[in-house]
């Protein structure tokens, strides 16, 4: 088992290439006659030179230094690391989906357009919204799109004094960052002891200057916002809109819908709820749904089903916020989500959510005697624990996370949300078995024991991984962001 791999540049040997295309068979003209010399490279790009065997070995070996969802459990709260069905990979690779150019005539891509149109309809049904855009490439991208729609809506009505967006203190960092990108000032509203938005505090900040409230429900501590109807009514009465961060949708499919809760704009994460693979950080997809009155503002073009039954792209949307990307969507990611939805159907999606919530509550019940539970009530698809009861040992959440690596587990989400000190947010998802949950709980309980009896073992973890804890401070002080040949 390898513990490291040289950089690809270090494997380079002069004269090698893995390029394999036919030789030039058109009449050749010297390059300088086609492009004047002043536009040509003076210095060849110093790319590595390798044969195919070298490249394949290198990346194969690199992959062995990685832990993926197929390797083991990934209880990352808010990330919904559910199993990535292999059939989706097979279908997404059909040439009918991969070998089509976005600018081909619509008559040639009816299958793709139909897939997008049907997906839009299904997502509307799932969320209780009236229209969807599939353009955004990720959740944060969807958030920006959603906030720009809200901005356009207020501006179009001439309501220019709405310069603020309310965000709960438990929110993910993308929420305030997105609000700022959309030109808004963020107002942070605190959470109450039940883990929900503090209604009294919220009432203090809601006024005619508020454009929107951004919320996720269940919230970032995995609890359902009990006051949701009062909250949405409060904002609407003041003329504001409600934005739903769909990161936690896996808890509610077929059970409740953000549209019915009063939300006006939602985004979904296909790479979370709809099982498309995370890819080591992307590509994802963040479709955005809106209520009817906001449809005119959706990014253009939109996918439509015409009266004659054909599918197409509609560009004539004078109030649209414009484009948020080139072309139409992370289409290949949509294919996987679409396949997932068809595979499960409405009934199956509901079963998925029920089991996600069941698994989370079960795991929580196994751990509640051994860790501190800041909110001891029924959770939804995720819950938060902290090592507060182990404070005397001096062991922190980070240490526990690193010790989990030694046992072959990816740690839960740590230090988020910020409203809980030393948080560990655990989301098992529905695709994990009881045995996996039992095994994980057993290990976490063991680590709590180790924290008391073998403190240093935990504090200095990990011990069995190919690298130990990094000096991230030094890395940030003198950033080395690219390889350079030593002269």
């Amino acid at each position: 088992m390898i513990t490291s791999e040289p950089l690809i540049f270090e494997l380079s040997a002069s004269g090698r290439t893995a390029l394999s295309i036919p030789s030039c068979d058109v009449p050749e003209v010297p390059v300088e006659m086609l492009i004047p010399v002043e536009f040509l490279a003076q210095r060849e790009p110093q790319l590595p030179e390798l044969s195919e065997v070298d490249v394949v070995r290198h990346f194969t070996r690199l992959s062995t230094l990685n832990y993926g969802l197929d390797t083991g459990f990934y209880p990352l709260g808010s990330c919904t690391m559910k199993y990535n069905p292999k059939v989706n990979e097979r279908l997404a690779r059909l040439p009918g989906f991969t070998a089509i150019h976005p600018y081909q005539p619509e008559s040639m891509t009816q299958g793709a357009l139909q897939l997008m149109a049907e997906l839009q309809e299904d997502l509307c049904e799932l969320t209780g919204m009236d229209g969807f855009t599939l353009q955004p490439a990720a959740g944060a991208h969807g958030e920006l799109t959603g906030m720009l729609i809200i901005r356009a809506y207020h501006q179009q009505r001439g309501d220019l004094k709405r310069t603020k967006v309310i965000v709960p203190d438990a929110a993910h960092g993308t929420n305030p960052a997105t609000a700022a990108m959309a030109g808004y000032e963020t107002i942070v509203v605190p959470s109450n002891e039940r883990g929900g938005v503090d209604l009294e505090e919220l009432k203090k900040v809601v006024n005619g200057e508020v454009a929107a409230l951004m919320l996720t429900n269940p919230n970032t501590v995995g609890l359902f916002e009990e006051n949701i109807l009062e909250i949405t009514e409060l904002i609407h009465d003041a003329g504001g809109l409600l934005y739903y961060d769909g990161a936690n949708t896996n808890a509610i499919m077929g059970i409740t819908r953000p549209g019915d809760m009063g939300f006006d704009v939602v985004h979904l994460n296909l790479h979370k709820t709809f099982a498309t693979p995370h890819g080591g950080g992307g590509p994802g997809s963040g479709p955005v749904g809106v209520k009817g009155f906001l449809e005119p503002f959706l990014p253009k073009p939109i996918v439509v089903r015409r009266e004659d039954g054909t599918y197409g792209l509609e560009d004539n949307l004078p109030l649209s916020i414009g484009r948020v990307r080139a072309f139409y969507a992370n289409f290949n990611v949509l294919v996987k989500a679409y396949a997932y939805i068809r595979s499960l159907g409405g009934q199956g999606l509901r079963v998925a959510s029920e089991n996600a919530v069941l698994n989370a509550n079960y795991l929580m019940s196994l751990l509640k005697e051994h860790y501190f539970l800041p909110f001891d009530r029924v959770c939804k698809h995720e819950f938060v624990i902290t090592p507060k009861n182990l404070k005397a040992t001096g062991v922190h959440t980070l240490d526990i996370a690193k010790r989990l690596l030694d046992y072959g587990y990816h740690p839960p989400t740590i230090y988020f949300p910020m409203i809980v000190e030393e948080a560990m947010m655990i989301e098992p998802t529905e695709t994990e078995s009881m045995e996996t949950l039992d095994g994980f709980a057993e290990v976490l309980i063991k680590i709590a024991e180790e924290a008391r009896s073998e403190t240093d073992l935990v504090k200095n973890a990990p011990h069995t991984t190919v690298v130990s804890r990094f000096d991230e401070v030094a890395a940030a002080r003198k950033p080395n962001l690219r390889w350079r040949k030593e002269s």
Partner: protein
Amino acid sequence: MNFVPNTDSQQEQLLARIGVKSVEELFEDIPKEIRLKRSLNIRGGMSEQELVKQITGLANKNKTVEEYSSYLGAGAYDHFIPSFVDQLLLRSEFYTAYTPYQPEISQGTLQAIYEYQTLVCELTGMDAANASMYDGASALAEAALMTCDATRREKVLVLQTVHPEYREVMKTYLPSRGVELIEIPYLEGVADLSALEAALQEDVAGVVLQNPNFFGGVEKAEEIAQMVHAKGALLVMAVNPVSLGLLKSPGECGADIVVGEGQAFGNPLNFGGPYLGFLATRDKFVRRMPGRIVGVAKDKNGKQGYVLTLQAREQHIRREKASSNICSNEALCALAFTMHLSALGKTGILELAYRNLQNAHYASREIEKIPGLNLAFSGPFFHEFVVETKAEPEIVNAWLLENKIIGGLDLARFYPELDHHLLFCVTETKCKEDIDRLVARLGEIQ
């Protein structure tokens, strides 16, 4: 198929341990008024076998560039991807992995990104690159915002020879941050230098140039860089990575920030996505770069490895003060880019660029000979060129389609003044016979 491993009996055990009688009890805190009282009206629920049949049927409704000979480019390029790339991407340790926030078990992803960043720097002649962005268009919009951040000015100039959809994305991103966007016209298919000069006042933060531009033409990048710097502004160049096998790197031309669409390496057409935007810049702007960045680090035993670094600038920490809200990168697409480019290497990229150049120029020479068709612009170009047609573009393309050829893009779609103009792209996927066939069919149109 729903991928829930727990059997009914096991689910009973879970319920018992929790101390509830049914799953329904776990949802009691949801107000009755908003409980969905019917089942979701979403078609589906089928075996894998049925799923494959149904969705394959959908895929078969599309006509592909494998069955047709395509001459479409315009920001999405049909290149040959070596077979090993997809097979390596299917290694589940790569594609099912999460973002590498736990570096100890993510060295594969992290090292690959570090290699990707290095490749982008080498290609573009810049000092640092990020781990990729959603696509070329959004990377360009973020680069434009970087120039405002760096110069503390609020106006950006963009040439009309930049991809029209990229310009549209800039129009969506910039106004909400209070930045004014001004378009500069073209002349003879390239940037109108006197118009640019006139617009370049001391209040301009950045100028955005695409090279080769949307029409395929090579721009006078160095001259423009000098003009831009003279006014204390920054130059952002959007480039085609394949062209960098031949063209002078944006770094050598004097660009301050470089972006582009990386799809051409390792990523199929995919009907427009997922793609990947690359972004690279000079050392002095490193901390203004949005997105994830991987850097070298040493562990406590002195062993070298890789980590996500400079994270304090990112949204999950900086929150409302972050310069961008971007959370993910296009990791797997960037990995494909890295694998393909590594396989090409120094000599391969040169040869690939050369093939594209020769093919496109041969095609353009032959098309010029056809009465009723001529090259719209006289300047140098890489692998795309604009053809002016006397016959209606719809008629030209309909005829080609009948002959299993997808013709150039009708530019009236984006440039009303360029109706009767088609943008042709010829990559290494064509051989002389293919091009001769295109020319023959074009010659048959009255």
